[in-house]
């Protein structure tokens, strides 16, 4: 028992702020703020091949007798954003004749399983290039390092703590997302307005950085943040939370770290008989449609799903040779505003289709993404 208390003590000690992961990094914040403003290099109108301020590396190309086999270790297809992204990926494959085989393994959101998947792919020995979309950064690093020893590796979405991959494809990032939404609220409202912040989960790096950036801007502008609540990404819970807040006072703006439950939050205002306040959502069709139908004051920052296309393009450049932005391929991260809303709303697409998919010109569109 005594040792038990000691162990608990050790745990408590270990939880001193040294453990708080740094999701509020001023340098990264400033860098992403700058990248949001930067002009990307590359063909205009094709943001998935554009790149912000990265260096180029000349790829020699792989000397293969036949078509290449690309293996993809996927963290999961467990949310609609990843479903849209994965469809992007399989459709993009059709544009690359140099890729003959594509092997997809799905880790279903488990680090342990993804490590095993990568080991399996390495043991199978058939892959020429590996694409990894890591479930979490630190845990997947050793597996990616082992893969790097065997073949060229491309990482996208979340990164890894090693620079052994050929490149790391990602949009500007979480701080950028948080900045875009919060700055919109600050522009629209007076100091001291009530802002409700809705978050999905704690601890997910890409979501924590969105929140820390958004919070920072709202606090600096003197907004009154009435609450920051976790919704678990659950519609019913989101609606209940907003209803509870409405019983206690007025809300002038809602900031969300992800838009999947935005429509449920809007409905809470409608059903309780309030006007819809200023809203920060994301690029899901249901939100964009609601925004257009109700004439809301809103913005939709995005975490563009077109990066899934970029991962395949990067793989094909490794195979065929050519210029590859490396060690990082930073993609533009545009927000949808009132001015561009009409370009992205499409009632033929499913409610949780992500409009910033960069897929409108692709061959299988819209059927492959579930549209009519």
């Amino acid at each position, binding site marked *: 028992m005594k040792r038990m208390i000691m162990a608990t003590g050790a745990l408590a000690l270990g939880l001193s702020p040294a453990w708080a992961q740094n999701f509020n990094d001023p340098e990264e914040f400033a860098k992403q703020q700058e990248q949001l403003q930067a002009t990307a290099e590359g063909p205009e109108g094709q943001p998935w091949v554009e790149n912000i301020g990265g260096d180029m590396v000349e790829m020699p190309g792989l000397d293969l007798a036949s078509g290449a086999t690309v293996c993809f270790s996927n963290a999961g297809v467990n949310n609609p954003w990843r479903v849209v992204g994965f469809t992007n990926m399989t459709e993009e494959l059709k544009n690359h004749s140099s890729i003959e085989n594509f092997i997809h393994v799905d880790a279903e959101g488990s680090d342990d399983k993804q490590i095993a998947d990568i080991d399996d792919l390495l043991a199978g020995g058939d892959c020429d290039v590996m694409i990894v979309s890591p479930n979490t950064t630190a845990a997947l690093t050793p597996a990616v390092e082992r893969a790097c020893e065997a073949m060229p590796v491309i990482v996208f979405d979340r990164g890894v703590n090693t620079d052994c991959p050929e490149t790391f494809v990602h949009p500007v990032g979480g701080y950028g997302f948080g900045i875009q939404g919060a700055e919109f609220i600050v522009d629209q409202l007076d100091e001291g307005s009530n802002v409700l912040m809705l978050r999905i989960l704690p601890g997910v790096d890409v979501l924590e950085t969105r929140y820390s950036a958004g919070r920072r801007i709202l606090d600096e502008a003197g907004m009154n943040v009435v609450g920051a609540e976790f919704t678990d990404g659950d519609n019913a819970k989101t609606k209940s939370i907003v*209803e509870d807040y409405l*019983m206690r006072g007025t809300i002038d703006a809602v900031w969300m770290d992800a838009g999947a439950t935005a429509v449920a939050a809007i409905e809470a205002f409608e059903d309780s008989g309030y006007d819809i306040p200023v809203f920060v959502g994301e690029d899901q069709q249901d939100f964009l449609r609601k925004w257009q139908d109700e004439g809301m004051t809103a913005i939709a920052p995005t975490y563009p799903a077109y990066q899934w296309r970029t991962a395949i393009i990067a793989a094909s450049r490794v195979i065929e040779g050519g210029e590859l932005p490396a060690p990082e391929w930073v993609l533009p991260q545009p927000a949808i505003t009132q001015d561009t809303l009409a370009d992205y709303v499409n009632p033929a697409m499913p409610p949780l289709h992500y409009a910033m998919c960069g897929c409108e010109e692709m061959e299988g569109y819209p059927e492959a993404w579930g549209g009519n």
Partner: protein
Amino acid sequence: MTDGADMQTARRLRLPQINPVWVLLAVLIGAIIFMNPGFTQPTGYMNFLKRAAPLAILAAGQVYVITSGGFDLSVGSLITLVVVGASMLTNNDPAATYWVVPLMLGMGLGVGLLNGLIVCFLRVPSLIATLGMMITLTGLAFMWSGGAPRGYLPDTFRFFGRELIRDVPLVRFIPISVIVLLVVVGLLAWLMHRTNLGRQVHAIGDNPVAAGLAGVPVNRVRITAFMLSGLSGAIAGILLGGFAGVSTDVGSGYELQAITAAVLGGAQLLGGRGSVPAAVGGALALTAIFTLLNFLGLPQPVRQVVQGLILIAAVALAMHRRQQTGT
């Protein structure tokens, strides 16, 4: 396990007692009102009832399976399947609601029937049978929709979970879901406590062999219990889809909450004892706990700890009382 004679003594002993779940509920409601006087307004308590309705209906169905001696872990994923399936089938057509709703209710009955058949004829313990069903149904919901819902739910479908009847005297408005709750719970309570089926459910949960010898059609009653639970899952799914719209994880976690609610209401795991009104009381108490912890501004981790402690304490207390009364 108690035999028939003991059961009767137990019933006589229990009658004058108030089920502790009502005391718990009253205390919780009192605390909520203390924290937030607005709760006494119709918006306060009607929103509360509306929110609790799906869980209360689920608990009312679950109590049949628990009383008959089993578990039903498949209801959460059934909710997801109903919401996703309805969004696929209605395909944005408001007129489709009139056949999609009955179809979804039928699907709930079908899933329950399958659970019952697996338990009765393949002799798979219900924990495993419904666990397998849970995994399978979640997979089916994803396969059907391709991972993301493909359609909106039309307003006609969402009517049950979202709309209100306004200008009602005394309470100002009544959510449709509260009416659904009253009707469904009323029917399930009547079936359980006023009909032969209810007595048979209790009997087979108490002692299946004895019940079988006494002429109770054990398999048929068990299957009926699973079907009622499946039906309650489908109704809860329709309400939840109506309340909050489409998503792919609406139902997750509801199976354990429904069991928790039934247990808080004094239902005895592995059978023989259970009450529909008390299970509904358990569901309301559970929702009240969540609401209260919300008002107190406690973070999620604390809510989990409190929920865990209450769960263990409630059952421990019930067992203690049973040992003391010698039933």
